[in-house]
């Protein structure tokens, strides 16, 4: 009576089995996660992880364009450390990163505080302040180069007519001046990033706190130092780290502004690595030069993570 019937009910068609297995697969968190992550991870592995390992390998060989070269151990690295141009480039990179970050932070913070007030045209001003950051670096760097041109500089013109100089300023023709000019352009470009991000952070601070501080007798500077700055520290830290990573590995700006000159005095690690690796075709040495950036970046991020963790626990 019932036996045969029950058996029939439990028997699913092949089709039904296939469909239910597929849905079970899509339901499974693990399988779905794997499927979703696959394309992104694939691109990152193929175009970052793999080349990174290759770069490590190259740096240990004497590979050049056209010939495979042979294993040379750390020869490329020692050569770099004894190379006076590289030493200069390393010093330049630290100088450039340090000063640009300091100025970007100070000016960005100031601008954020200004933008945090209510005034007419606020939206337009805020939007246009981001332009230096939006516009391709190469293009705006050219505009600056034109502004620094030895013969036609508008800044020389302005300063001359304001009576401040009698002879032209050697903006890009002297190594020291050129590095400061690069800091200026980098600051100009990166300041909006700091400003907008710090502004967002400022807006999370309840206005009550500033009002209470004002009632407590704190003037504008005290309010900033005792209330705003401590509360902004986490955001500031993150922004600074992002910026340091970008600035330390910067290539475009110096390449366009000075090309590394005059006489290799304004090279950054990245531009020098390019000159050696691509310009002279010494791929192995170029890779080694680039790798000098990695430990510094890693250290910066590591310090930031420790700091943030300590602040979270405080």
């Amino acid at each position, binding site marked *: 009576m019932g036996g045969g019937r029950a058996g029939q009910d439990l028997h699913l068609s092949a089709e039904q089995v296939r469909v239910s297995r597929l849905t079970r697969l899509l339901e499974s968190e693990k399988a779905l996660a794997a499927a979703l992550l696959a394309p992104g991870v694939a691109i990152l592995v193929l175009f970052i992880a793999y080349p990174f390992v290759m770069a490590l390998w190259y740096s240990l060989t004497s590979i050049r364009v056209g010939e495979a070269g042979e294993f040379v151990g750390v020869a490329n690295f020692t050569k770099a450390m004894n190379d006076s141009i590289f030493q200069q480039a390393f010093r330049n990179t630290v100088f450039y990163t340090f000063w640009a970050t300091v100025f970007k932070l100070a000016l960005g913070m100031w601008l954020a505080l200004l933008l945090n007030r209510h005034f007419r045209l606020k939206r337009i001003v805020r939007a246009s302040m981001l332009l230096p950051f939006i516009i391709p670096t190469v293009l705006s760097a050219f505009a600056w180069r034109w502004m620094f041109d030895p013969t036609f500089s508008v800044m020389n013109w302005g300063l001359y007519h304001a009576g401040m100089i009698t002879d032209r300023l050697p903006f890009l023709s002297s190594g020291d001046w050129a590095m400061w000019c690069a800091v200026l352009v980098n600051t100009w470009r990166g300041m909006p990033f700091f400003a907008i991000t710090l502004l967002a952070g400022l807006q999370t601070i309840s206005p009550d*706190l500033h*009002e209470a501080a*004002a*009632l*407590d*007798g704190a003037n504008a500077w*005290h309010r900033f130092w005792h*209330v705003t700055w401590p509360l902004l520290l986490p955001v500031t830290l993150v922004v600074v780290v992002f910026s340091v990573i970008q600035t330390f590995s910067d290539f475009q700006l110096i390449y366009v502004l000075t090309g590394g000159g005059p006489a290799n005095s304004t090279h950054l690690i990245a531009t020098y690595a390019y000159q050696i690796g691509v310009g002279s075709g010494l791929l192995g040495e170029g890779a080694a030069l680039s790798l000098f950036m990695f430990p510094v970046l890693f250290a910066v991020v590591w310090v930031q993570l420790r700091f943030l963790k300590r602040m979270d626990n405080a």
Partner: protein
Amino acid sequence: MATVTIRDLNKKYDNGFHAVKDVNLEIRDKEFMVLVGPSGCGKTTTLRMVAGLEEITSGEIRIGTEVVNDLPPMDRNIAMVFQNYALYPHKTVFDNMAFGLQMRKYPKEEVLKRVKDAADILGIESLLERKPRQLSGGQRQRVAVGRAIVRHPQVFLFDEPLSNLDAKLRVQMRVELKRLHERLETTAIYVTHDQVEAMTLGDRVVVMKDGLIQQIGAPLELYGNPANKFVAGFIGSPAMNFVNLAVSSDGRWAETEGLRLQVPERLRSHGGKRLTLGVRPEALQIANGTDQHGFTTTVDVVEPLGNEILLNFRAGGAPMVARVDPGVRIKAHESVRFAVEPGRLHFFDAESEAAL
């Protein structure tokens, strides 16, 4: 002498919104003045103008004899307790309370003494080394009050300080604040939307609506002699019952469906007009025998509260509430006769809503 004089105060925002309209107020030395009203009535804006946190559109504010219109907040010698406490999250309780004194360069020993004294008064000595996020709501509120006390200001300003506390705590803190005011003897301006707080805390109360002052007076004055329908309905809980009545042409009777009463002598000139009658729930008594001033109705809902019973019913076409002794035994849908003392009736002009 820390009086606060507000004359013809107005606040208009850029978008045209007129938040405070021609406010005139004289707060006496050591007085606890409460500004009360529904949200958007302008009470907080007025307070903030006294504090210097909002620009004044027109009018004048004096603290003592000094006109403070253009003085920044820190120069007005006032202290404020914010609704959300505004405690500095990264500073300890001690530093929170000491901050104002440190900004004014008080010597260290003085700062220590004042903070300790305030902490003692408020019972938070054990919390001095903690950070705000480690405190409960009630504790944070005390720290906020403590921060105001240490400054020994001329005037205390309170911006709805109890609204973020749970009901029980609120009642407790109310009593403590009153005790504190008696002890410190400092002028205070207190803003709230809760009429119970206004009645229990204020020496005088200002009722505001839509930017205008409706009435200023001692709590019992507002309760017994409300100046208009709004004040009558705002003060007292459950709210006063209102009925619309039409007056007969000869001015002697006022009636609406199911309700008819004699118009008192002084109002007989209102013949042919419309009136609003107001009577408080506690003024309605269960009638005994043959009272002339009464009416019969059927009870809809009975709400026993333990200390009293609320009877909900309809009379004169309007829903009403009566407050009776807990011993009364009335059930829903029973018929009841209520009586009112003529002296406890309030009359308002139907259009202007002013008391008559």
